[in-house]
């Protein structure tokens, strides 16, 4: 099983239209819900009048903030949201009330009959404005200056001595634009309340966290609440926290006694957001003449939007992983997240790390150029060592960074081509790191991060019960493969029962690239336990599996094994902020981008992307490649088109026509190289691949553009306008570059 290109266990259902997603579900007497969303970015709510709307045909119930006053937030330290705005609105698109009616059209029509009277407040739309003291606070109870949400300050090693010892100090500013997940499935939730118990079927990457928070917001015991995640039509981090419509569906199902479904429109998905933070960065790096880093000071400013979301973690993530890639003896990090009157930002694939990775890798390339170093050899020389500890205390185990760099530079002849291609053509390299699951849960507890139950039936069928959500990454398949391998059976004989808080033990969710490492280890342990019971009756493993199971069941009773996974305790140092960044293992990636730039139009064509990824061990190469190809594609989108931007207070492109994602014609060919380092703690040696491969794409492309035209872009996305402007501003550099090239 392990390492074979087997079809996924859910592929048949998905290729035939049988796979069931939340909006595909319907229940008898089901009502349809719609959210009334704010048309103002920042305003006091003077009055909400629902009386006309309640009289509209087909309307069954309406709810607003007066019925659901409990504040919540995915992080215990950011409890700043309510299901419906109470007292004021903080972004255009924020939910204020909900209508449920006999059909969707009737609910939609009734929305227009709800009258909301606003008293407008000045809006805060930029990081610069959010740092000012003379604008209204978006969250009045915040005690921080201006509209600052979170500040983080960390220092490791002797920064002053490090910069004093440097032969050169480089200081650069970068900006990474915000963007969004745009999963193909629009969020949907169906809720039912019967026999005093509420069930929510929802496209959620984190059913467990929703379970906890819904219990609090709805004021029901968690024991009477069940969350089920059916197949999810893509997540990428965009479905990892409780959403208004999920809680509204549950509340209104309870209130009406009928099932209620809310499915967001694509425009609403852009308001639900929780996408990539726009981040301004300053990076100051001291190096010796040979490039050895002596000190690094990274400063980041994150535009958080109107609510906390995962923002405190996002802030720390912009600083945490830099020293897990390269040796940095002295490192300081200052992060600052601000509130603005925009849809809240949160975690998107790579959570908080693609932005600083752009800064770090673009600057390293500049340093290599300035010092006359080969950028690939240079990165290998300063790469972290396997089985070491970073300056910020993070434990590193397996590390294939050097192998990844070698693999992509050899495959593309990077060293021969770099600085040697004709004007307009370029090659660029970047490397990166990602976590295999957060070392700590988002709320403090001493319980396992993942658990699994494996049950063998006397007919030979085996079921794995585990709380993971299947958002496309293949978590269910991974469980089936690990259990089948352990028990020596075919994956066709394994059923997976996942994403159901009633039926499966807790897994914290499909986020932070944790599922293969953590749920995989839990499932393996559970299957090992079943294996041991079978081995007790059939030590030579000669019997057909069903017969061995029957014999074991006769001796031991029902054949069940349990397993769990809790990360080791010594993953980080002991300081405030050390909770973000530790992971039981890190994946490593290296990327080479080859581009051609049209100097007349500013258009960039990617000729090829080559990406090597240290996965530890590949459980299914076809699926690993699929994750890499998808990560590269999403990185290309962020490099060139994808941008969550605003005209005054309005989202500029809340639809899939104007929010540009790459089509099949825009996506370059990807050459993937799987590097295996056999992680000592991963299940069968495996590490993550869901997020890591996206992270080096943008800087590799930036470095390739620099090689092509001699101009370094410091802000994403790399639009034709930006490229032409950069070229015009760097006319001299361009001429020199042209002379230097053949």
């Amino acid at each position, binding site marked *: 099983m392990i390492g074979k290109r087997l079809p996924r266990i859910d592929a048949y259902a998905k290729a*035939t239209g049988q796979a069931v997603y939340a909006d595909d579900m319907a229940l008898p007497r089901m009502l349809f819900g719609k959210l009334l969303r704010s048309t103002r970015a920042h305003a006091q709510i003077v009055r909400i009048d629902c009386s006309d709307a309640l009289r509209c045909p087909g309307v069954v119930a309406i709810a607003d903030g007066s019925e659901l006053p409990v504040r919540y937030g995915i992080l215990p330290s950011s409890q700043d949201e309510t299901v419906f705005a109470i007292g004021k609105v903080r972004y255009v698109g924020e939910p204020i009330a909900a209508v449920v009616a006999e059909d969707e059209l009737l609910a939609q029509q009734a929305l227009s009959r709800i009258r909301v009277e606003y008293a407008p407040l000045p809006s805060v739309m930029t990081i610069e404005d959010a740092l000012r003291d003379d604008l209204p606070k978006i969250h009045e109870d915040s005690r921080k200056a201006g509209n600052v949400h979170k500040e983080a300050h960390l220092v490791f090693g002797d920064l002053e001595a490090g910069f004093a010892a440097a032969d050169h100090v480089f200081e650069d500013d970068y900006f990474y634009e915000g963007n969004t997940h745009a999963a193909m499935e629009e969020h949907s939730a169906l809720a039912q309340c019967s026999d005093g118990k509420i069930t929510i079927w929802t496209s959620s990457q984190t059913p467990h966290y929703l379970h906890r928070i819904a219990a609090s917001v709805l004021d029901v015991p968690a024991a009477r609440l069940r969350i089920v995640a059916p197949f999810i*039509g*893509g997540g990428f981090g965009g479905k990892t926290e409780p959403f208004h419509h999920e809680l509204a569906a549950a509340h209104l199902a309870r209130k009406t006694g009928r099932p209620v479904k809310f499915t967001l429109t*694509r425009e609403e998905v852009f308001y639900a957001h929780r996408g990539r933070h726009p981040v301004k960065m300053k990076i100051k790096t001291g190096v010796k003449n040979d490039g050895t880093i002596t000190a690094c000071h990274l400063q980041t400013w994150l535009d958080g939007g109107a609510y906390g979301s995962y923002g405190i973690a996002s802030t720390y993530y912009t600083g945490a992983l830099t020293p897990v890639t390269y040796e940095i003896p002295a490192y300081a990090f200052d992060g600052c997240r601000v509130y603005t009157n925009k849809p809240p930002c949160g975690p998107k694939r790579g959570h908080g790390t693609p932005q600083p990775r752009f800064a770090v890798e673009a600057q390293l390339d500049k340093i290599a150029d300035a010092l006359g170093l080969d950028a690939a050899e240079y990165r290998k020389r300063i790469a972290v060592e396997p089985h070491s500890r970073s300056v910020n205390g993070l434990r590193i185990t397996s590390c294939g960074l050097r192998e990844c760099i070698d693999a992509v530079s050899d495959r593309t002849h990077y060293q021969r081509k770099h600085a040697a291609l004709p004007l307009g053509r370029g090659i660029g390299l970047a490397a990166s790191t990602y976590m295999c699951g957060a070392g700590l849960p988002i709320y403090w507890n001493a319980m396992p991060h993942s658990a699994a139950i494996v049950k063998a039936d006397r007919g030979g069928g085996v079921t794995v019960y585990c709380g993971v959500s299947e958002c496309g990454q293949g978590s269910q398949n991974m469980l089936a493969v690990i259990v089948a391998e352990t028990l020596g059976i075919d994956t066709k004989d394994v059923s997976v029962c996942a994403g159901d808080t009633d039926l499966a033990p807790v897994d914290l969710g499909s986020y932070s690239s944790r599922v293969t490492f953590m749920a995989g280890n839990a499932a393996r342990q559970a299957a090992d336990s079943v294996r041991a019971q079978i081995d007790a009756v059939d030590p030579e493993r000669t019997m057909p599996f069903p017969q061995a199971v029957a014999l074991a069941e006769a001796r031991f009773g029902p054949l069940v094994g349990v397993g769990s996974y809790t990360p080791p305790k010594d993953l980080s140092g002991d300081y405030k902020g050390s909770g973000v960044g530790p992971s039981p293992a890190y994946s490593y990636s290296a990327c080479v981008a080859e581009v051609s730039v049209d100097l007349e139009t500013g258009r960039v064509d990617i000729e090829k992307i080559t990406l090597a990824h240290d996965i530890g061990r590949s459980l*299914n190469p076809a699926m690993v490649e699929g994750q890499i*190809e998808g990560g590269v594609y999403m990185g290309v989108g962020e490099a060139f088109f994808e941008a969550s931007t605003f005209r005054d207070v309005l989202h500029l492109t809340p639809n899939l026509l104007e929010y540009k994602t790459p*089509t099949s014609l825009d*996506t370059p060919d990807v050459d993937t190289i799987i590097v295996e380092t056999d992680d000592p703690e991963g299940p069968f040696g495996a590490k993550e691949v869901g997020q890591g491969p996206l992270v080096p794409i943008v800087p590799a492309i930036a470095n390739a553009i620099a090689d092509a035209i001699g101009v370094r872009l410091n802000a994403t996305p790399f639009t034709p306008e930006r490229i032409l402007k950069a070229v015009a501003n760097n006319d001299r550099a361009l001429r020199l570059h042209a002379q230097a090239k053949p």
Partner: protein
Amino acid sequence: MVPTASKVLRRLRLNGASVECAFSPNKTLLEVLREDLGLTGTKHGCELGQCGACTVLIDGEPQLACLLLAVDCEDREILTIEGLAKHGRLHPLQKAFIDTGATQCGYCTPGMILSGAALLSANPNPTKEDAKAALSGNLCRCTGYAKIIEAVMLAAEAMRHDR
């Protein structure tokens, strides 16, 4: 306020069968398929004609079900993902999607497969560029399209072999 229109009764030629269905005349084909006929294999990602998730074949041509009124589909041959496999035998492209790993979250998959199947019946010898062009109206956020294009090429080969 727009009054809800009375339902109309129509006979549709759907997945090789003739079905009678009563639905509101303001409903799109997408809504009628999903809500009135229970064919939820046809997905929606925008309902604005921008993403391709609701692609169905109308008289063999890929069309966006979210932009068609169901009442306009009378007397036309409608094929959805549920009707692509014949007598339990998968279309070669469905098989190729399964074998190559071209489906991840699976949400764009029905539309992709139908766009790809239309290409393969019109052009049995597509190049990779032909495949990319034929699928350029179907967005996918998971796969980077690589394995989807691979699946189309693989299915083309299998279908040539079968002939």
